[in-house]
């Protein structure tokens, strides 16, 4: 997937009327340079990136800005609204909502990132092996994909939730990743099939390279654009899945918190005590929104022909 020449020329031509530095005929911008410039040109995607960075800072630096930790209870203030002492107010048991929320953000962000990374990796491997080898490998793997698509991932993880209750949350991450890779795998398979007969793949094969080697050296790097875009969009899907499962108590377990458990606790009093619901819900929407904006911007920058 190289950059179409017209675009490079277009970029160079663009610089001329601007009266900028004289055109250097020998300097052709690198692919990633072009992608970066295109991404930076999208104001919304850039805004998403900035907001996301801010949210990360809030999640990881935020806990040090307040004397309260997420396990502390203030027995002098139950259900009090936002104040100088408790920035986001307090819960029924006197927990500091700000400390709880930033802790929940940490969990949701980390889980989202890890799940997206694992599931996209799994999708890349399954999809490319199925597409490259074809035959019974393809049929078996795609049959598995079909079977897992029949049962929504949410149901399966909820059913299996007692297995990680009381153990590390990393098990939850693994389970979530294990049921979120199917759609991406199908797309990867399709793209691999179209790359399989390309000259450079055939050349590698005739040189005697093994199948897995060709996949990791030649095929996966060539669909890296798709993988990057999907990994980004999978982050938001994973965060929604995690918070949804945690909402019902099938995800992150107390005493630990995630945005999902906080929203679940705040839902019943969303009208009467809005700070219990509003901050966690608002930050969750903001996280997902900015991840989606970044993903969209990346899609436009990496794959301008997608027309989105």
């Amino acid at each position, binding site marked *: 997937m190289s950059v179409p020449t017209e675009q490079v020329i277009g970029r160079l031509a663009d610089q001329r009327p601007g009266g900028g530095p004289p055109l250097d005929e020998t300097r052709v911008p690198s692919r990633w340079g072009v992608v970066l410039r295109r991404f930076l040109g999208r104001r919304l995607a850039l805004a998403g990136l900035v907001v996301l960075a801010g949210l990360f800072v809030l999640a990881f630096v935020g806990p040090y800005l307040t004397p309260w930790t997420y396990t502390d209870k203030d027995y002098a203030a139950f259900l009090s609204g936002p104040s100088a002492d408790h920035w986001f107010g307090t819960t029924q048991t006197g927990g500091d909502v700000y400390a709880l929320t930033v802790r929940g953000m940490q969990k949701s962000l980390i889980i989202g990132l890890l799940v997206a990374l694992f599931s996209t990796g799994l999708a890349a491997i399954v999809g490319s092996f199925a597409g490259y080898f074809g035959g019974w490998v393809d049929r078996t793997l795609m049959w598995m994909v079909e079977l897992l698509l029949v049962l929504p991932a949410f149901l399966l993880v*909820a059913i299996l939730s007692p297995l990680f209750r009381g153990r590390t949350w990393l098990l939850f991450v693994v389970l979530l990743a294990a049921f979120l890779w199917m759609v991406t795998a199908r797309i990867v398979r399709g793209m691999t099939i179209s790359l399989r007969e390309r000259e450079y793949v055939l050349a590698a094969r005739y040189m005697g390279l093994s199948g897995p080697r060709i996949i990791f050296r030649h095929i996966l790097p060539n669909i890296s654009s798709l993988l990057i875009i999907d990994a980004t969009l999978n982050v938001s899907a994973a965060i*929604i899945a995690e918070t*949804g499962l945690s909402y019902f108590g099938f995800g992150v377990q107390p005493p630990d918190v995630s945005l999902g458990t906080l929203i679940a606790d705040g839902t019943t009093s969303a009208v009467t005590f809005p700070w219990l619901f509003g901050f966690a*819900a608002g930050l*969750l929407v903001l996280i*997902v929104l900015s991840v989606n*904006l970044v993903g969209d911007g990346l899609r436009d920058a990496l794959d301008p022909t997608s027309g989105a």
Partner: protein
Amino acid sequence: MAKFLLRRLASSIVLVAIAASLAYVLAAASLSPRSNFEGRNPPPPAAVVERELEARNLNDRTPIIERYGAWATGLVRLDFGESWDGTSVNAEMARRIGVSLRLLIIATILGSVLGVLVGAWGAVRQHRFSDHAITFASFVILSTPVFVLAVLLEIVAVGVNDATGVSVFEYTGEFTPGLEGGFWTLAVDRLQHLVLPTLTLVLAQIAIFSRYQRNAMLDVLGSDFVRTAQAKGLRRRTALLKHALRTALIPSATFFAYNFGLLLIGATFIETIFGWHGMGEWFIESVRRNDVNAVAAVSCFAAVLVLFAGLLSDLAYAVLDPRIRVGA
């Protein structure tokens, strides 16, 4: 064509059977109905616990393969077994299935039709203000999880109720228990309860479908055959509806099947939040109460619906794309 659909139907039935079995085995391995007896005070005698579990095919000391055998034999006669407290899963399912189906069917139809129309309209008016507004709104709704969207709508509804002084919208349950009155009173009451949950799901669906449809439509609008259709004298509306939209619907038909699983999950949240006693709420309760047979029954229901949506999308595909009809 009929042969193709029959083949799909056969493979779907096999897939449902395998998926339900998978769900049963996973549930039987991970949930422990025995713990429901352990918390009791005074603790029931061990022999009683054994007998109760044994009677419901829930004993974790029986090898899983035997339990699966017993469950599968029941399933062949469409008998889903008993809950851990002895009630029939089939009876409970009969009570709940209509509640869920009503929500799902209305939301699917309204959501996909409106979503497609909104998306197509946005594509036709690309770069105008209305297109930007729609794109932005659908992007925000897409980024809002259903359990947040439901509560936000509930807050708005409370505001409307307070402002008008009448309870226009109801947000708990699917009808007012013990309400007396004629057909119309009951119908209006049901409608008041129906609006918010359905609206939540429909909004989410519109957001997804419009975004997808807009992209598909934009791909088609620039193509030669749409220009030809207009050049040969068709009115713009005819060219857009009969030529462009019809072609652009094909990817959406595929997407419909993919999206259905998400719709089911969304309905689960909505049933729980608005207190509807449907299949989704039952699933959540059953996992919490370690009710293996009920969990397997809901999973089976979900698998049937997902595959049915797949069949529908195949059918739509065949109607829209003549090449499929000839080919198969």
